Structures are given as C-alpha cells and as structure tokens.
C-alpha cells in the first residue's frame, strides 16, 4: 500500500509539472474539435480502441475492466506528437504538441473497484490568421488578424465496477464534461504609417463546458483464453456557458451515443490478438453548429497482436503491433475525414508478482495519416503510460 501511495504521488507530481497544453492536429479547427481517446500506451500500440483488453484496468471506455483486477491502481498517460500537414492551397508545414489524455486512479471497496479518472475528449486548440487591406488616411495598409482558439473538452469520471462471479464484471462511469475554450482575436496593424504605432485590437470570449455522460459496460472472460467486452456511453447535451464579460452566447451541442465492442484472444502462450470497434453517430450535432461543417459518423476499428514472452534483462518486455482505421466526426473539407494508423510498442515491467504487473510503463509509437478533401496530415505520435498497482 505504501508503495502504491508513493507511486501515485509521483504520478501526480509528473502531471502537474509538465506543460499540459498544445495541439496535435489542424483538424482541431473543424467543428467541435478532434476526438482524443483516453487510452493508454498498451492499447495504442495494439491499435485497440480502449476496450476488451486483458490487463488494462482503468480505461473510461471499458468500465467493467476495472472489476477484473481488484487492486489499487493508478495510471497516467502522456502523448507527444509531431505532425506534417499539406493543404490543398499549397501550404504545408509541421506542428507538434503534447497531451495528457488520461489520469486515473482506482481503489477497491465494497467488493468492487471505485475509479476516478480525468480524460480528454475533444481537442480544440488552433491558430489562424488572415490578412486584410485597410484604407487609412487615403493609403492602403495591410493588417493581420490573428486568431487563436485555446481549449479542450475533458471528462471527469467517477466509476464503480465489480466482478460477477469469477469470469465477468460489470461497471459504469458517471462523467462530467469539463474544460473551457478561449477564443481570442487580435488585429495587428503592422507598419501602418502614423506618428505612433497603432495599438493592436484585441477581443476574446471564453466558454466553460459542462454536461453529463454515463457509460455502462460488461466484460466476460471466456475460459481464460478470451475476453469480450462491450460498453455504451450516453451523453446529455454538451453545454458551453459564456463567461459574464463575453459578447458570445451560451450554446448547447448534442453528443452522440457511443458503442464499443472489443475482444482479446490468447492464441497460444505468449501470443494474443485483439480487435475492437467504436461507433458514434455525430449527425445530431450538425444542427447545433453555426459554421457549416462536414459531420460524419465515426466508425473505427482496430486490430493488434501482442507477443508477451519477450524479455529483456530478465524482465518481461511484451512487444505489440497494431493497426486502426476510422473516420473523424468533423472535417475541414466537403468529405468526411479519415484516419489510418500503424502502431508498435512495448511494455516494461518494473515490479511484478505472480504475473501481475505492479509497476510498469507502456510505450507506443504510431505512424498515421488523416485526410479529407482539403487537408492531409501525416504524423508520428508517441504514447507513454505509467501504471502502478499495489495491495
């Protein structure tokens, strides 16, 4: 228990001292942003969508999994990424950013596991600029409007999961959407020729997000060689409340039902395959958006394989490969944006008792592509998760 508390404190300190902002895609600017799955490094490496995996106990999308491993557990996930983009206008460039998509803690009580997690949901950070011609004193001058939207939507989840017999578990998560977004516009007058430099014009508006979600799920182990899990997330409207000094209006956005299904099958000792799928229909939100946006239904599938008998210096170092493909809910062009990712990774076990990992790290490297009719992105993304467990 003492070891667990120390590890938990360490994980919290890491999360507090690391810069928790940035952006990872130009698709953040489309609609309500780019979804960020709250999954750990192991799931990323396996192309898994966060459900039906052996051993991953604190994933908000798989609430029953926590009931399969009744032990105090904490996990923190960091995710840097490097993106090269290419726009149809001919502009191209690169961006990079960091995210911490998941911070979770589980603790056993009342014959089950209580979990608390803070997870990312939609990333909305982006910048843009526009040049205009301005006539002042009879002269034409160029001014630049610089726009920045900084914010994201997360979810604070409280969950409970408990085993049903020895091979099944049931769980749920009650989630509250959190986060805020600041939209800030600055007009820079550059070198407009007047006796004094013109002060730039600045205006900003901030909204705070709120809303409720409920996720219920079940997981079943089939004879010790397979696990099947499913979950459903219902969301109420996502409410954006403008701060008092804002000119902007309060808004409300319909959130989709999300359905998840996943499985892991042990084909042979040390060889496991996994497959998962997530489906969510975002069509209802289209009517809530003032800006014309192509909205699609996200249907994602992922498959992967894990070789768990690999070892290094006497420690188990499972090796993983995965592939996933799917659609993004919002796109910048007229067609629905798609995403394809190849992934690989490995796990490191720092502390292990009777095949149970008490402290470990999982690393995933992804190479992916997102594209729609106007924009193509190719990216590298790393996911590092630290997990500690104890009795």
């Amino acid at each position: 228990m003492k070891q667990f508390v120390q590890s938990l404190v360490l994980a919290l300190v890491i999360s507090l001292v690391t810069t928790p902002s940035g952006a990872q895609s130009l698709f953040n600017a489309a609609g309500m942003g780019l979804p960020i799955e709250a999954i750990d490094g192991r799931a990323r490496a396996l192309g898994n969508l966060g459900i039906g995996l052996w051993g991953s106990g604190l994933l908000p999308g798989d609430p029953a999994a926590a009931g399969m491993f009744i032990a105090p557990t904490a996990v923190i996930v960091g995710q840097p990424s490097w993106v090269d983009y290419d726009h149809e206008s001919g502009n191209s460039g690169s961006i990079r950013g960091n995210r911490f998509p998941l911070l979770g803690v589980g603790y056993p009580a009342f014959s089950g596991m209580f979990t608390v997690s803070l997870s990312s949901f939609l990333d909305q950070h982006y910048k843009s600029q526009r040049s205009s011609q301005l006539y002042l004193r009879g002269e034409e001058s160029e001014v630049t409007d610089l726009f920045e939207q900084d914010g994201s939507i997360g979810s604070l989840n409280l969950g409970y999961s408990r085993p049903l017999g020895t091979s099944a578990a049931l769980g749920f998560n009650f989630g509250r959407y959190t986060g805020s977004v600041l939209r800030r516009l600055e007009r820079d007058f550059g070198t407009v020729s007047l006796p004094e430099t013109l002060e730039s014009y600045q205006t900003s508006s901030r909204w705070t997000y709120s809303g409720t979600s409920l996720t219920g799920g079940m997981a079943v182990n089939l004879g010790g060689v397979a696990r099947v899990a499913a979950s459903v997330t219902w969301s109420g409207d996502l409410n954006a409340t403008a701060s008092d000094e804002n000119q902007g209006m309060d808004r409300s956005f319909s959130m989709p039902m999300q359905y998840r299904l996943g499985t892991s099958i042990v084909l042979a000792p040390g060889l496991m395959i996994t497959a998962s799928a997530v489906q969510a229909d975002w069509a209802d939100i289209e009517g809530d958006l003032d800006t014309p946006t192509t909205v699609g239904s996200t249907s994602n599938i992922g498959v992967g394989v894990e070789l768990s008998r690999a070892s290094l210096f006497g420690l188990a170092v499972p090796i993983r490969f995965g592939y996933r493909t799917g659609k993004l809910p919002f796109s910048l062009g007229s067609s629905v944006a798609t995403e394809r990712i190849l992934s690989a990774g490995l796990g490191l076990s720092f502390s292990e008792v009777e095949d149970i990992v008490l402290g470990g790290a999982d690393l995933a490297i992804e190479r992916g592509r997102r594209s729609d009719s106007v924009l193509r992105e190719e990216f590298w993304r790393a996911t590092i998760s630290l997990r500690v467990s104890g009795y």
Partner: protein
Amino acid sequence: MGMAACQEESPTTLDADLLPKEPITIEIELPWEDFASDLEVFGGYGAPWELGTGVVANAFAGILDARTLVRFAAYPSVHQVRDTTGTTRPDSSLTFVGGRVVAFFDTIASITNGPVTLGLGATQTRWDKRTVTWMAAVDTLNDLTLWPQPGAGPVNSIGTTVWDPVEGDSAWFELDSVQVEAWADTADASRGARIELLTENTRLQVSRVVLRLDTRPSSNPDTLVVLSVQRDEISFVYDPFPEPPANGIRIGGVPAWRTVLNVKIPTHLDGPAELCVAVGGCPMELEPLQLNYAAITLKSARGEQAFQPTDSVGLDVRQVLRRDALPKAPLGESLTGLLGQRVGPDAFGVHAGTDIEIPITAFVRNLLRDHDGVTNPTKTLALLSVFEPISIAYASFHGPGDENGPVLRLIVTVGRAMELP
C-alpha cells in the same frame, strides 16, 4: 522524447473561414467642441539665461530687437610658462596687456542675408542674469532697477566688427588693456559685455562667447601668451515681448508658452453610420481595447515673423494635475516620449497649415479604463515644448472656432461578437 516535444508548435489553420467575422476599423475625427474646451495660453516658464546662449537682433521682421549680455569668469592667476632658460614652470605674475571677445554663432539658427555689423559695449549698470529684461536690469524681490536706457544701456562702446557667415562662425572685438582691467573685478556687479546687432532685419543666435587675453608672463616677458576665459553668465534681452494669442495655440519660446485645454473623451460613439451598422446600433460604448490610436491634431499657423522657429520644435503633452493651480500647476509624465513630436520649422512658415498629430493613445485608453462610469471623463492637458525654454522662437497653431481648429483623431476597431462554431 517527451522533453523534445515540450516546446509547442501550435497549428495554424489555412482556412480563413475558420476565423471570426472580420472586425471593422474606422477613423473618427471629433471636432473641437466634441472633445475639448477651456483653451488657455500661459507664458512665463523659464528665462533667457537658462538657454545658455544669446540672441542679437535689430529690427528683425521690423519689430524685434535683442541684445546679448555676458559676464566672464575670473581671469587666470597662474599659468605654466616656459621661461628664458627653456624650463616650464608656473608663473603667477601675469600681466594682461589686451585681448578680444570672440562670439560664436549658430549659423543654422541665425537669419541673415549676408555680412552683418556687430557692436560690443561694456555695461555700466548692475544687472542680474536671472531677471534682466529689456527694461529692467534687476527685477528681484524688493529690488527693481531699470536700465537707464532700455535695452541694457547705456554702455561704454568698445568697438564694432563685421561678421560674414560665409567666412566662418565667429566674430571678434579687440580689447585694450584698460577694458581688460575693468572686467577683472568679479565683485563688480555692473561689469559685463553687451553685444548688439547694428544691421537691421537680422537675427543671430550666439552660441558661445569667449574672452581671449593677451598675457605677458613675468618669467618670459618677451613672449605673449593667449589665455581663454569662458563666460560666467550669459543672457539676452529682447523687445517687444510677444502678446498672448487671442485665440491661438502657442508652444515654446523664452520665457516659454504653454497651452492648456480640457479634454473630454467620449465613452460612447454615435457614429459614423458604418460603425453603427457594424455593432447593430448606436450609441456604442467605446472600450479601451477598441481604441487603436488617438491623436490631437493641430493645424500649424504662421506666427509672428520675428519669432519664427528656425529649427525643429519638439512638442510635448502632459496632463495638468491641478488646473486650479495654473500657471504653476504640477504636470504629469510626458505622453509623447523623450523627444516629443518633432515638427520642422517650415510648418510655421512656407508650409503653414500642416496637420501636426500628437499621439495620446495611452492617455485616452487609461481614461476610458478608469472613467468609473462617468460619461465623457474630463482631464486637463498642457501642450508645451519638450525642453523649456529651448529658443526665442515659438510654435503657433490655429485655435478653435473655425475649420482649422484642433481635432481629435481616433482609430477604433470594433469586432462582432465571437461565437463558438
């Protein structure tokens, strides 16, 4: 890997449609009556002696006479002299057998069409450099002594000389040993040299005056050594003293002029129509961050020819902290910076009528920020020269009352309400 990615590079989208609607930037010009009131011109700041230079003029522009008064410092009492044996040693027994007064002129600030004749005289009346004027030799508390002759006279004439600006920047007057001896007594309050200009319709600026003494050292009586004596005090007197403008704006001069006005900044704008359409109706409350630029715009005027600037004028604007204490009210910090708003001399001559903008953006923004709900908050501003005094010349501008009056130019940007996508 995590460290390498800690430096964020934020995305920049490429679609302008993803920005909020374009804000509107417009220029608004408020006439005098909409932003200012209670114009007053005050004079008397500083005195000619503070300039450290002199002015001489003779019927310049038909009216201006000016004379420069100089007192020299104590003569040197010892000097290193090479004696007849070739040894250099201090000699404290110096004999001044003659000398010359050398006057240097600022050729750019001076106005002359050719060679001019100058006269040098020795003053006979006790005078005070701080208070001396054309009429008064001394004008201190309980002591008003008028010159027997207006214009720092009479004087014992020492001589005249001709200065040709083409040949150099200095002119000199020869002195005999008697005059040198007369100016040696530093306790004599009446001692001093008066330089006057004898050529009419000319104005010269005297930048420096030096007394050069022909000295015979006792250790080498066959040799004459020239020793320089710097001026101890310098001032100038002039006539006539300019009258305050009836309805104009005056800045600068010596003693310096200041123009004071009350400024009321509108907190709500009722136009123009383009603005009202953009914001969905007027009046619109003007927010500090919507103000990009504010400047008082003055139209330069041709002032009295005798006091026309010959060099750039630095205009300053400061807040008057207590108007009821004028003309000695304390002033706030400069709103225009160290050098002020520079205006070339032509703006008050051949290019009279030029618009001169004095930016006060930060001041207006602060006023809007701190108005505490007061509609059209009022503050008092003083228009003055950056350095006071700086020159006998002053800058003139049209006052309120006609189309040439001061205006307040604002550049305002108003954005539409930002909404979520």
